[in-house]
């Protein structure tokens, strides 16, 4: 079973609650995220993407990001991470291992 999320162009404070809800609803399935339309990514949506990555890794389900737009990739880089950092759920970030 595989589900998909098409990320909206603007992932800001206003978009965050909807984004979180869409992840919560799809929990338990393989998930494919289409990031081709993203023009702007803010920190609050980033933390939802990170939490989703952790949740999917915990469930042992795959989480993929497809067609990341240039803006999406650049925003992630600006915020200190990368597209890979959102998908490699099994390899947790530095602080995460000790929690």
């Amino acid at each position, binding site marked *: 079973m595989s589900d998909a999320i098409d990320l909206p162009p*603007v992932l*800001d*404070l*206003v*978009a*965050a*609650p909807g*984004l*979180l*809800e869409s*992840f*919560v609803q799809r*929990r338990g399935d393989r998930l494919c995220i289409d990031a081709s339309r993203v023009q*702007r*990514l*803010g*920190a*609050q949506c*980033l*933390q*939802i993407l*990170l*939490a*989703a990555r*952790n*949740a999917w890794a915990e469930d042992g389900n795959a989480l993929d990001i497809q067609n990341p737009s240039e803006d999406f990739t650049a*925003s992630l880089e*600006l*915020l*200190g*991470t990368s597209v890979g*950092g959102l998908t490699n759920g099994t390899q947790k*970030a*530095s*602080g*995460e*291992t*000790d*929690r």
Partner: protein
Amino acid sequence: MEDPLAAIKVTFFQECEEQLAELESGLLAMESNVADSETVNAVFRAVHSMKGGAGIFAMDALVRFAHIFETSLDKVRSGVLSATPPVVAVFLRAADLLADLVRAAREDSAVDEARIAALGVEFERIDHLDGAPEAAHVVPASECSAGDGGGQSGGVSTWNIVFTPDQALYAKANETALLLRELHRLGEVEVELDESGLPELQDMDPEGAYLTWRVTLRGECGEEDIRDVFEFVQEDCHLEISKAEPYGFDPGTVITGDNGFKFEFFAPIVEEPEEEDRKAEVKSEANVQAAVERPDPAAPAAAGAPPPQSKTVQAIAAKTEAASSVGATIRVDLDRVDRMIDLVGELVINEAMLSQRVLEAGIARSSGVAMALEELENLTREIQDSVMAIRAQPVRSVFQRMPRLVREVAAMTGKQVRLVTEGEATEVDKTVIERIADPLTHMIRNAIDHGLESTDRRIAEGKPAEGTVRLTALHRSGRIVLEVSDDGGGINRPRVRQKAIERGLISPDAQLTDEEVDNLIFLPGFSTAEQLSDISGRGVGMDVVRQSIQALGGRISISSRPGKGSTFSLSLPLTLAVLDGMVVSVQGHTLIIPLGVIVETLKPRREDVFPLDGDLNVLKLRGGYVPIVDVALCLGYGAQHSDPAQSVALLVEGEGGARAVLLVDAIHGQKQVVIKSLEANYRAVRGIAAATVMGDGRVALILDVDAMVQNTATDARRDLAESRQLEASAGER
């Protein structure tokens, strides 16, 4: 989806306007050598705040130029560069460019890169002028200034920044990504994301704040530069900035010498900061640890203590305190104020109607009801005054636009001009302010272009090479008077007269007084310039200025002395919402005559009235003759007064000093009335300026005295039926 940044952006641009105004006035003070160190600081702060705000919105051109400007200002502030006239001149031009860049950012239009580059060169030049050791240069976006604190003294420093936003930071539409982008401007940046505070997906508050960023910044910048980036969010985040040890080796490095000696480098001993707050100490330690651990990203990061809950409360308390100490202000939509003014106007009318009803009911003046009503009347008047005061603004906002105009026009005409402004604090209704900007602009252009002589000619005539244009504002008898004067050659009356004859505006044998000749320049299509210049002659002349002033219920007059200069005076009502008027009656109709135009009231004597041809009579008054305007006849209420001695005469003065005597049946006293626009509610009617509602609920028309004075009887009759019809249709309220 509404962009939450949009609202903040609007506020940012509003603040820019204020800061640009502050910048301009500060620079002008510097120009006239009356600036103290606080003025220089204020100027610096204005540019600096604009830079900070623009950075948040990624307005690159604005940020870059503000940075160059700020660097030079900082040198003045620190005494490295002295504010000599050439330096201030560059600053003034930079302020103009900055204003244009703000406008470009607001309108999302293109910026003039050539102008930015040219001013960049100017900044370099002034640095050399002063023999400053280091020239300010046009810095690329990735560099930053030397000069701010931090002891970097031109060298590259490495800074460790730990940034943990609070939820409030995001709630106020700030964004970490934008702040990080700002840091990129300061130098080479490495960003490490610490997500150790991230909760489980299902436990997340989508509007919460769980992430921390550790940034290593290498660049020629100081701590102040970094703090500036966070200036607008400092109360809503936890921020640590520390300088990495620039010398030596990373801790743990071992160097083995040729002779087998080994040196091992330990982490530097960091002195405990002298902060009483224990939490701050904890964070500080965490920061040092983080800095030390950086070479090994796999090592567990020391989790910084979460920001204390009370921080927001403290920030709010601090803000409240700051607000109360610095004259608190709020921004209110103009529509809301206008709505309130309308309502207060209705309240005044209602109160008057109530008084009338009480009077009609035969209730004694000494009764409790009547006395309570009187109190209500006073209260209503106070409310009205207070609401009007909300709309009142100092004319400063208009005056501040003028120095730039003067500089530009002076440059275009090659004349040296000094603008002197007085009475900037004079207050007047906002609507009036908005509508005087264009006429004033035109008059100042005229004063420089036509009024002032060329520099050569001034010198030849023994005048100072620099011409002076004076712009003043003052309150006089319930009106605001604005004057634009120049010390030029005055109006060249023979030439004006000649032009008027050439254009068929007057007949060649017309006998005109000096004043009448001066007033010819207000005739439509009149232009004395030999060639239409770029500056004042665009087919829009003083006639348009006069029209717009008259539309505001104002008057314009000229006084000019050959060789000495001219003065244009504008007299305008302080507000367009209420009017002090004389209540008169004509053939049973109540009319209002604006008090401002009434010179005196008198009872004409039969022997002083002399008939001329047709309906026209003149009144002999103190040795002179003044035309009589019979209001009843003019408005078509009835036939001419058969016996002028049975009526009351009001001597009024129209535009340009033209006088006339208005004949009415009776005077009922003075009254402040709420102006109701005829144009908005009905349509423009000649001879009638506006309308108001009286206490008895009837509509009273407010006379357009200028039209009355100028009107010929025939013109007036054409509009008779109209005004009659208007009153009938308004009826009782």
